[in-house]
């Protein structure tokens, strides 16, 4: 049995419940046990630009919760993954560990931190996922969007290829959908710039939206709530700023995977997506 502590962070449990719901239901289908992390807080990432060390302590406190129940951590947000992974590595240095102990925390058992999607790729594997696919998403064109902190910095992760990532492409393909290959796959969504210069952030998001449109994709597959904020919640703004029409659904990868595993639209929370995926779903029932 694959068993993990699930770290939700700030955004997913209140703003992206459909992501959480689909991930949990996919986990059930694939025999993955997700254990709650009672007392988990913000990952600490929002504090990093202000004071990296404080951010690391907040992150490390979350890791200590998983450490106490002796479970590796899976996360649903790219930035949470980066922040917790960084803290996990820092916990092995004497300097940081002593600061950590000073605030009354403990790390009794070594635990790993990975993105939920990476865990699917590494621990379940493409073959086993393929065997579980009951309703292949044949005929759909899906554009995978990795986001920055899924595989960068490589020093932290040592996973996938930072220039030409492929793991999410493979995970999309195994659902039966076509994973669209495109240039600039590693491009940032612009989310971190949103609070600083909205027009610039929208420009960055628009870049991939326009590539998605050129390729006639049925949906973008996202694995991070911030990227979804940029591509889905701000899609209207991009349309206005660039005087164009998109109407491109943005689904969380576990929603797509869930559909291919035979889960229904409710079980993957499809009605909570802001941009409706009716025409995509119609293709599937045809």
């Amino acid at each position, binding site marked *: 049995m694959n068993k993990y502590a699930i770290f939700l962070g700030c955004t997913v449990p209140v703003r992206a419940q459909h992501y959480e*719901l689909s991930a949990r239901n996919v986990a059930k289908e694939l025999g993955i046990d997700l254990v709650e992390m009672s007392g988990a807080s913000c990952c600490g990432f929002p504090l990093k630009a202000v004071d990296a060390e404080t951010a690391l302590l907040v992150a490390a406190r979350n890791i200590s919760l998983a450490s106490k129940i002796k479970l590796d951590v899976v996360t649903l947000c790219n930035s949470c993954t980066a922040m917790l992974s960084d803290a996990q590595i820092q916990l092995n240095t004497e300097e940081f560990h002593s600061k950590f102990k000073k605030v009354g925390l403990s790390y009794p058992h070594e635990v790993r931190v990975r993105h939920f999607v990476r865990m699917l790729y590494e621990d379940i594997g493409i073959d086993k996922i393929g065997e579980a696919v009951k309703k292949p998403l044949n005929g759909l064109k899906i554009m995978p969007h990795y986001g*920055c902190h899924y595989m960068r910095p490589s020093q932290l992760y040592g996973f996938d290829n930072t220039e030409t990532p492929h793991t999410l492409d493979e995970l999309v393909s195994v659902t039966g959908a076509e994973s669209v290959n495109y240039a600039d796959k590693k491009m940032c969504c612009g989310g971190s710039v949103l609070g600083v210069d909205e027009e610039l952030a929208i420009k960055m998001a628009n870049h991939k939206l326009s590539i998605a449109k050129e390729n006639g994709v049925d949906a973008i597959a996202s694995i991070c709530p911030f990227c979804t904020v940029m591509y889905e919640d701000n899609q209207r703004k991009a349309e206005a700023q660039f005087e164009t029409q998109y109407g491109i659904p943005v689904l969380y990868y576990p929603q797509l995977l869930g559909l291919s595993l035979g889960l229904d639209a409710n079980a993957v929370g499809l009605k909570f997506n802001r941009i409706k995926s009716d025409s995509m779903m119609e293709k599937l029932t045809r």
Partner: protein
Amino acid sequence: MIDLRKSDPQFKWEIAKREGGEGLLKCFGCSDCAASCPVRYFDERYNPRKIIRFTLLGMKDIVLKSPFLWFCAHCHACTERCPQGIRVAELINAIKNYAVEQGYCPDGYKMQLDLLMKMGRLYEVEDFDLKKRQRIGLPPIDKTIPEVAKILESTDILKVLKK
């Protein structure tokens, strides 16, 4: 114009001794970071190499007061490409941390700190959210996590922001 008479020779050492800043002196100005930077690609006012160059030259005021310092998305595209193995995103972040200590913290970050002090999270968990979670079959979550405030009180972060 850059006026070198206003340069602070200590500035680069202040940055280089910080976690993440250790690579600063190795920069040879190749611009690979700027070439790989997505923010730079869309807005030329932002340039990581320039920030690093000005830091090396001791142009402290220009670097710390520049609104563009905060344009860095911390995406690590530069880190992957730097031929000198400098953790460029962490270096820029170290400069941001130093700017905060020197009194230049954007309001948005202060607001986030307030939220974390109060709730341990960025978004309030309202009864509505808890009900929705229950309705769709998601487990309950903690509304507030007071332990976060304890950590924030134990470090210098509140003092720095003069809370």
